[in-house]
């Protein structure tokens, strides 16, 4: 038992140290999880759908620390889709950390048949142009099919996935379990291999004079073969975000797509 305890000491210590970590994070000050998150002016969603979406938005907001809002409209009051989206966000004072702060707004504009994602605060950089493009590409077909509920769900999922990194997979205990098994197996295998003796003689150990005498030495050029390959131009702007300014003077990112 005493021995086992020794092996467990290191993981225990790291557990204690790491469990102190969450205190580092500050809590939100502006986000209201009971506030309205879905503004369905175009009446595209049923009441139960609205409730379900609100629940998911709040859950994902807490996880990503982004204020997530969904708006549908038949009338943009003469504004362009992008300006309507940006102004709607600012006029309602959304933002997870503060007013006009971190958040993402999805606008389904039935007047111009355009879907728009407006990002604000930290979300401008966290959700890059290519992320927005990816999400729009995913949801546009649903909108064309009038599957508004599915489109919104895709949007939430897309935002949820943005901050995913290698560590996200570790939340799955089975993956962590398999990695731990492999690490422990490899470590013990290396330990057991280290007791093997290495060969310390090579091809020069018994070589008289330490070198060979080369007689024939021919390097005869015969021919050349040539291949051409077109260089693919990588126009992937992954990671960058373009920025606009709303009527109230706040910065917004994101983009739209017709459906």
């Amino acid at each position: 038992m005493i021995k086992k305890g020794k092996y467990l000491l290191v993981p225990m210590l790291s557990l204690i140290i790491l469990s102190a970590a969450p205190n580092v994070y500050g809590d939100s000050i502006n986000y209201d999880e009971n506030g309205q998150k879905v503004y369905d002016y175009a009446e595209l969603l049923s009441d139960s759908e609205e409730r379900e979406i609100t629940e998911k938005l709040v859950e994902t907001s807490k996880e990503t620390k982004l204020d997530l809002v969904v708006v549908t409209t038949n009338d943009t009051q003469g504004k362009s889709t992008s300006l309507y989206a940006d102004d709607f966000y600012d006029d309602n004072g959304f933002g997870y950390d503060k007013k006009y702060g971190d958040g993402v707004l999805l606008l389904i504009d039935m007047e111009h048949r355009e879907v728009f994602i407006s990002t604000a605060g930290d979300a401008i950089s966290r959700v890059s142009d290519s992320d927005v493009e990816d999400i729009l590409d995913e949801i546009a077909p649903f909108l064309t099919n009038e599957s508004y509920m599915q489109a919104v769900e895709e949007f939430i999922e897309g935002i949820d996935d943005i901050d995913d990194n290698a560590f996200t997979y570790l939340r799955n205990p089975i993956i962590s379990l398999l990695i731990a098994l492999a690490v422990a197996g490899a470590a013990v295998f290396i330990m057991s291999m280290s007791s093997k003796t290495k060969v310390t003689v090579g091809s020069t150990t018994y070589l008289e004079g330490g070198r060979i005498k080369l007689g024939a030495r021919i390097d005869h050029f015969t021919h050349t073969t040539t291949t051409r390959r077109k260089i693919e131009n990588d126009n992937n702007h992954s990671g960058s975000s373009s920025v606009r300014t709303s009527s109230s003077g706040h910065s917004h990112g994101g983009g739209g797509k017709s459906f």
Partner: protein
Amino acid sequence: MIETYKCKGCGAPIEFDGSKGELVCEYCGTHMSVKEMEQSGEKYDSQVEDETVQDDNNKTDVNGYKCQSCGAELITDDKTTATVCSFCGSSAVIKGRFTGETMPAKIIPFSITKDKAKDLFRQWCRKGILTPSMFKKSAFADNMTGIYVPFWLYDYGAGCHIDAHATKVRHQRQGDYEITHTDHFKVVRDGEADFTLVPADASEKMPDETMDLLEPYNYSNLQDFKMPYLSGFLSEKYSYDSNQMAPRVEQRVRSYIFREVRNSITGYSTVNIVGSNTRLKRKRAVYTLLPVWMITYRYKNENHILAINGQTGKQVGTLPKSKEKMLGWFGGIFAGTFAILMILGGFLG
């Protein structure tokens, strides 16, 4: 005929001391060089005749020798050339087995004493993370024996001819195109070299892999063979003659010369060997005794051999692994890794 080297001063059995390079009497401290002992040896050699017992059918019982010190029967097999009396501990060199072809030409004397070898072994055991605790006890090292193992050391003249197809690759950028030029070459190399004193153990009892791993020996201390070097150690004569061992060494020399000639093809992106042939010429084979400290033991019904090069101290063999320790480490590392991964996933995921 048994030779038991006796101290000039007090008449006690005298043994070769590896650290001093001469024979030292452990009772009175008298020192004698190997050469001195060999020259004066006759005087102290007892005159008892070869105790080979012959029965009526004229069959030779080669195992029957009597200890010169206490008269007890020495237990040997037909390969033994030097042993230690199991009753009184006197060393016994069986002189009659060193005649003509069975007379070693060279010897590398022990330079690592038994105490030093035990120390090395203990350090070795302590390093093994998975070594069962019983091996870390000092008493375990006591059943270590010093053996002069018969080897053949071969000199070979070797040559190798290699035909190869080699390429050099150049890249060039032209607008939107990457152009790859591959220059093809026909390459020929022919090299020759002499390989000297390549060892092969000629004892049937010694595992070849273990003996190979004990290499290299330092040949600067290769001495002409003299029997007093054997005093205090075990030794045996070769089981295989130089012709029988040659194929094993030739395989090694072939790979050596090939590798050396192959390594002279440089400066190419790819080298593809089209054909090769090696030439070997054996120049000589030297019957040599090389020093090895050995421990044989049984652990969980398996025989293991641990060997230490009696000249350089290189250790060869696999220490046994404790299943319990392996499980302990596995469990500990597994639990630790799992906990850390879950924590990372929770906070950073």
